[in-house]
């Protein structure tokens, strides 16, 4: 469609360049004069949104790589240091981590759009297949990126996914060793994943260029599914599509920013705030939400090889779509049956996603099998059959006719689909959090926290009291190794002065050395030192505590959670509920019972706790009334201690939370203004086209 450009620069210098490299002509013909169908709806803005997200991921990723250390012993820590010490490190990390989810969200919308409007049909088969390749590359990139923080889910996700290749007959085991570079997932694996995670986005960018090229050869599909014939069917890309895409991106940014600033951990797994441990498998291994449907397919087949084949087949089958669906009519708008099956298919995919996050037992397995069959049936039975038996409704003669035909009612179906998709999407992504609900874990009661919600701030008094409780009670067994004494004087923290933080530090003895004699020695702490851990290593901690090592508390409020259940987690998205960790912790600290309920078999050396999963906890009741005295007259009760120390630990887990929420507000004001302005500009530009 992009014929030779008639673009002629007038400036002599530009003319000189243009004669030797006609790049301006290329840009002009592809992104300015390029004709786009007049009737495109907002689902078509996701192409631009995806390009934007790819650029975003590359930019933030390159910067993060400057601060990250790809080593099994250092990776987890280096990510924490990025978040805590690098200027705006928390922002960049959130942008990259949430960005991955947003990228996948956008790509799924883009794919469903293609599916609904038949964008894979003649003459766009190659365009579609290139898209499938991009999607596969994205999955590989996303998977390897998730391994890099080297938390528990990273490690075990990597183990499970690389083991998929061991299903290949004969050579499987050697391939897996080749992938690992060792006998198990370890440092060599992390190193090569880092290297590839850096490389693949550029490969994606390359394939995107081909994708766009193929698009510009075939021209864009459109909601009517009839090709452009005359001038009247199209509008020039700039300004029409450009401004519409910009508006689309700005609205998408609102969603993206909601995650970055207010819900950064909503899509993640709490378990990934626990450093990787090759000796302990987490109770549930759940991949990132965007892999869940395929994970569900894998699990619903009781044979290993068949499961792996089905899982990859579920993706590869997309590449054959242009030939599986041979119906002549492109758009499902004019295919009454295909339309209904499409929506059933969407529900099937979301259902599979939900099941992917559930434990593989009982009813979940059965439903998983049914949905797996339906997934494949859509491609292998329904679409080929519909092409034969369905009687499509008459198509409009041209795009121009299509635009004229619809007046007034055109936004209504749009709104309802958006709402349906929002709810379904919420169900889908939130299902990842639903996992531990099945553990028979008692739900902790909700608390009022000063730091919850969009304007949340830490209560300075609580932080100072919590620090005291930690120092006098918890620190006997629990470390706080990511928090430095200097942090006590940081803005958004307990509000001590630099001098007070230094004085606090000097009360500690820190091991340093070696000195000139080659010996280690002790000296008073300095603000730059970190809280010393009570035990030299995990084994010592384990041995001293009856086999259960007391976890480090730096990240504990983010590393613990409980199942919110359906549909609560959907509301959580809107209420910005992020306090599962603190709620659980405060309940746990007060949840001790002297006597376990009748019939409960308490193992020796354990204590009964109502809120601990499984109820038998190795930690004895840590707090009792009157144990710590506060200078500010707050009551010396367990309830008060529990709340204060939890607040303190929440700050320890995310020292920049106040900055995050403050910046979030500013960004939202800006984005809403931007989106509003773009909307009115768009209206103006399009006034003549509709």
């Amino acid at each position, binding site marked *: 469609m992009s014929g030779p450009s008639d673009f002629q620069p007038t400036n002599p210098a530009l003319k000189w360049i243009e004669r030797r490299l006609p790049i301006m002509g290329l840009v002009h013909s592809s992104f300015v004069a390029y004709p786009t169908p007049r009737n495109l709806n907002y689902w078509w803005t996701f192409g631009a949104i995806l390009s934007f997200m790819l650029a975003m991921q590359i930019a933030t990723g390159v910067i993060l790589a400057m601060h990250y250390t790809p080593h099994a012993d250092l990776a987890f820590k280096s990510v924490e240091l990025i978040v805590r010490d690098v200027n705006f490190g928390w922002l960049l990390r959130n942008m990259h981590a949430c960005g991955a989810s947003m990228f996948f969200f956008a790509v799924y919308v883009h794919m469903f759009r293609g599916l609904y409007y038949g964008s894979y049909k003649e003459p766009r088969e190659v365009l579609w297949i290139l898209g499938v390749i991009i999607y596969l590359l994205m999955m590989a990139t996303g998977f390897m990126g998730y391994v890099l923080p080297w938390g528990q889910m990273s490690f*075990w996700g990597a*183990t*499970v*996914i*690389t*083991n*998929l290749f*061991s299903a290949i007959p004969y050579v499987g085991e050697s391939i897996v*060793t*080749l*992938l*690992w*570079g*060792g*006998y*198990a997932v*370890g440092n*060599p694996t992390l190193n*090569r994943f880092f290297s590839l995670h850096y490389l693949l986005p550029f490969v994606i960018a390359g394939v995107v260029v081909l994708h766009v090229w193929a698009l510009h050869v075939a021209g864009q599909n459109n909601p009517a599914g009839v090709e452009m014939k005359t001038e009247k069917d199209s509008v020039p890309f700039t300004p029409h599509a450009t401004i519409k895409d910009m508006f689309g991106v700005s609205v998408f940014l609102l969603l993206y920013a909601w995650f970055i600033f207010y819900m950064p951990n909503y899509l993640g797994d709490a378990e990934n705030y626990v450093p990787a441990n*090759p*000796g*302990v*498998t*987490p*109770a*549930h*291994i759940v991949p990132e939400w965007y892999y869940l449907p395929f994970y569900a397919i894998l*699990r619903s*087949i*009781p*044979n*290993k*090889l068949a*499961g792996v084949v089905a899982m990859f087949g579920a993706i590869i089958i997309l590449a054959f779509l242009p030939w599986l669906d041979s119906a002549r009519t492109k758009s499902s708008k004019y295919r009454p049956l295909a339309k209904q099956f499409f929506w059933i298919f969407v529900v099937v995919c979301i259902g599979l996603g939900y099941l992917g996050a559930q*434990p*593989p*037992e009982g009813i979940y397995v059965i439903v998983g099998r049914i949905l797996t069959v339906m997934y494949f049936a859509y491609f292998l039975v329904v679409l080929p059959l519909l092409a034969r038996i369905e009687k499509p409704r008459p198509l409009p003669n041209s795009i121009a006719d299509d635009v004229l035909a619809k007046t007034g009612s055109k936004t209504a179906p749009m709104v309802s689909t958006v709402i349906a998709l929002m709810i379904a999407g919420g169900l889908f992504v939130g299902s990842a959090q639903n996992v531990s609900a099945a553990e028979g874990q008692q739900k902790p009661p909700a608390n009022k926290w000063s730091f919850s919600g969009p304007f949340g701030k830490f209560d300075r008094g609580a932080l100072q009291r919590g620090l005291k409780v930690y120092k006098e009670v918890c620190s006997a067994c629990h470390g706080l190794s990511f928090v430095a004494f200097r942090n006590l004087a940081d803005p958004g923290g307990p509000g001590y002065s630099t001098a007070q933080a230094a004085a606090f530090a000097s009360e500690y003895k820190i091991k340093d050395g070696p000195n000139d004699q080659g010996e280690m020695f002790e000296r008073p702490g300095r603000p730059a030192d970190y809280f010393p851990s009570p035990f030299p290593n995990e084994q010592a901690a384990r041995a001293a505590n009856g086999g259960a090592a007391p976890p480090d508390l730096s990240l504990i409020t983010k590393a613990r959670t409980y199942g919110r259940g359906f549909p609560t987690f959907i509301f959580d998205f809107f209420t910005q509920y992020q306090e599962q960790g603190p709620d659980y912790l405060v309940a746990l600290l007060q949840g001790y019972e002297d006597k376990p309920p009748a019939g409960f078999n308490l193992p020796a050396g354990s204590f009964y706790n109502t809120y601990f999963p499984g109820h038998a906890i190795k930690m004895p009741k840590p707090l009792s009334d009157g144990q710590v005295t506060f200078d500010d007259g707050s009551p010396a009760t367990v309830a008060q201690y529990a709340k204060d120390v939890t607040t303190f630990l929440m700050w320890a887990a995310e020292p920049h939370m106040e900055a995050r929420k403050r910046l979030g507000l500013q960004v939202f004001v800006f984005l809403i203004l931007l989106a509003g302005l773009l909307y009115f500009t768009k209206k103006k530009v399009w006034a003549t086209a509709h």
Partner: protein
Amino acid sequence: MAAVGAVATAWPFISQMNPDAATIAAGAPIEVDLTPIAEGQDIKVFWRGKPIYIMNRTKKQVEEAQKVPLSSLPDPQTDQQRTKAGHEQWLVVVGICTHLGCIPIAHEGQYDGFFCPCHGSVYDTSGRIRQGPAPANLAVPPYAFLSDTKIQIG
């Protein structure tokens, strides 16, 4: 000719991905003292980065493991094939689920053997797969008894 050259050049690029010399050296055999493991107990040691369960089975567990009819097993193997003669109470298996590599939990599941929390595979007291998606029994690593109370793995 060019094809031979291309393949020969590709070889180092692929071969470098395999475990390097240091990793292989670190994978040398290890010796484990069995005296601290009481009857009915187990320990987990690491060899080549893999957890190895060493289980001192009770009489009842051994009997159960030996009694199972082979026809009821997805991956038929007798208990005798999986242990060393004269040391039947000792079970030594690689604690890696043959499905997708999680670490099964010992003394769990309905056969009192191992249970894999990832996708629900159940192994019996001989480490044989009984239920779930895993295709094979837990692997028995190469090992030998140096004395009655000491084994060498590897």
